[in-house]
């Protein structure tokens, strides 16, 4: 165990000397996909609850497909599937994008978490108390102002508990990245396992590190809920 730590503490945490690896890579994957997913899902969730069918249905189809199939399959499609198409390989820009494992991984993760997040936010928008909307309208807000000043701040706050689950799930999903040759935490643990045959220790260490990150994230979300959701709690 000591040898394993001596040899692998650095790659497990942030670098193998050439690339970003281990925990740092896992966190980068998480942050990149969650941030992209969040930014895209906000407008999508507004469109998802739109009264116009041609706007609502395509987004419903997108979330249905991405929530109904395994992320591993989506990653395979992004990483090996798309690159196997001739016209993608021949097009220099697309070709260089899809040849890189990290690009494909972040793309697949972002698309996946965006689908879940869109449904979470859309659900929260649908459940906005009608009084809030009516009051905002009475104050003369409409169109995008109604959304930006009243509906979205309220809906995003109320989705925090579900959103925190989604972020934890996404942290757990980043373990798939090694299948696209991205050197994340699990990839280093696998390398350590192959080199030292200390299977239980190598994977156990990775498990503990993921556990620690999960707990830290849960703690941060609890703080965020105390900050932004306090008004919904029971009155103590």
């Amino acid at each position: 165990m000591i040898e394993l730590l001596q040899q692998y503490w650095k790659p497990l945490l942030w670098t193998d000397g050439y690339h970003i690896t281990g925990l740092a890579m896992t966190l980068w994957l998480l942050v990149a996909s969650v941030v992209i997913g969040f930014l895209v899902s906000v407008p999508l969730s507004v469109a998802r609850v739109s009264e116009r069918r041609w706007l609502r249905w395509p987004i419903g189809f997108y979330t249905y497909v991405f929530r109904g199939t395994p992320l591993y399959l989506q990653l395979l499609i992004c990483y090996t599937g798309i690159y196997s198409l001739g016209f993608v390989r021949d097009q220099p820009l697309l070709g260089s994008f899809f040849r890189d494992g990290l690009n494909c991984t972040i793309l697949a993760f972002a698309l996946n978490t965006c689908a879940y997040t869109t449904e979470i936010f859309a659900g929260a928008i649908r459940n906005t108390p009608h009084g809030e909307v009516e009051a905002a309208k009475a104050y003369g807000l409409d169109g995008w102002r109604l959304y930006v000043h009243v509906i979205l701040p309220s809906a995003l706050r109320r989705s925090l508990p579900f959103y925190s689950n989604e972020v934890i799930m996404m942290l757990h999903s980043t373990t798939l990245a090694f299948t696209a040759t991205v050197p994340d935490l699990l990839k280093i643990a696998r390398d350590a396992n192959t080199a030292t045959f200390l299977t239980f220790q190598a994977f156990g260490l990775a498990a503990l590190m993921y556990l620690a990150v999960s707990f830290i994230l849960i703690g941060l979300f609890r703080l965020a809920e105390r900050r932004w959701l306090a008004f919904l709690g029971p009155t103590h």
Partner: protein
Amino acid sequence: MQQNSFDSFLQSIGLGTLSLHGYGPLILEGTLTTLKLAGFALIVAVILGLLGASAKLSRLAPLRFIAQSYTTLIRGVPDLVLMLLIFYSLQNWLGALTDYMGWDYIDIDPMAAGIATLGFIYGAYFTETFRGAILAVPRGQGEAALAYGLSRWQTFTLITFPQMMRFALPGIGNNWQVLLKATALVSIIGLADLVRASQEAGKGTFKLFYFLIVAGVIYLLITAVTNAILGALERRYHVGVREAKR
């Protein structure tokens, strides 16, 4: 054989591009493997979930502690890490044991390992689902049953369980979908499931993209069918529940 006639049928109606190029049987086998794995893992997980939920609601502090650590640990660690940890460590320990005892080397069957691991992981999620559902059944129901002289087992099977299922079914549906999608991970530890089969078909025909999409469509079909079954079950367990009109 059957698959070839299916392919020629597609060709005859002008949908030749949809053919599976003779890889139909392989894909079908992969689908069955996925279903078998998910089905058996579901059974293991439900049993573990019921045990875990009763342990969490038990009066004995050690039982509560064990169940609490089980759900916390399992839900805090990614499934894939747990899967590799359990699968490879079991293999190593079994190897060490057989060496020590002078037995022949035993290879763990990936199917059994996959079922055990997935069942163990999703048991933690089912524990939470069932705990919530048991708490949702009014306490008086169980007390009345005991007062009528039913045994604790009869109270559970005849009174608590049927009422609990109504609250548990939505959670069971969610867990089932997550479990079904998690079976895709076992192809990483070497099981020939739907994902692996579609990859092989794709590599054999140089149509990887197409076959991966086929696999995705099959997952969606499975979800659609099981959603219909769950809907029927929900109606069944909803019998006799009065709802106020809104």
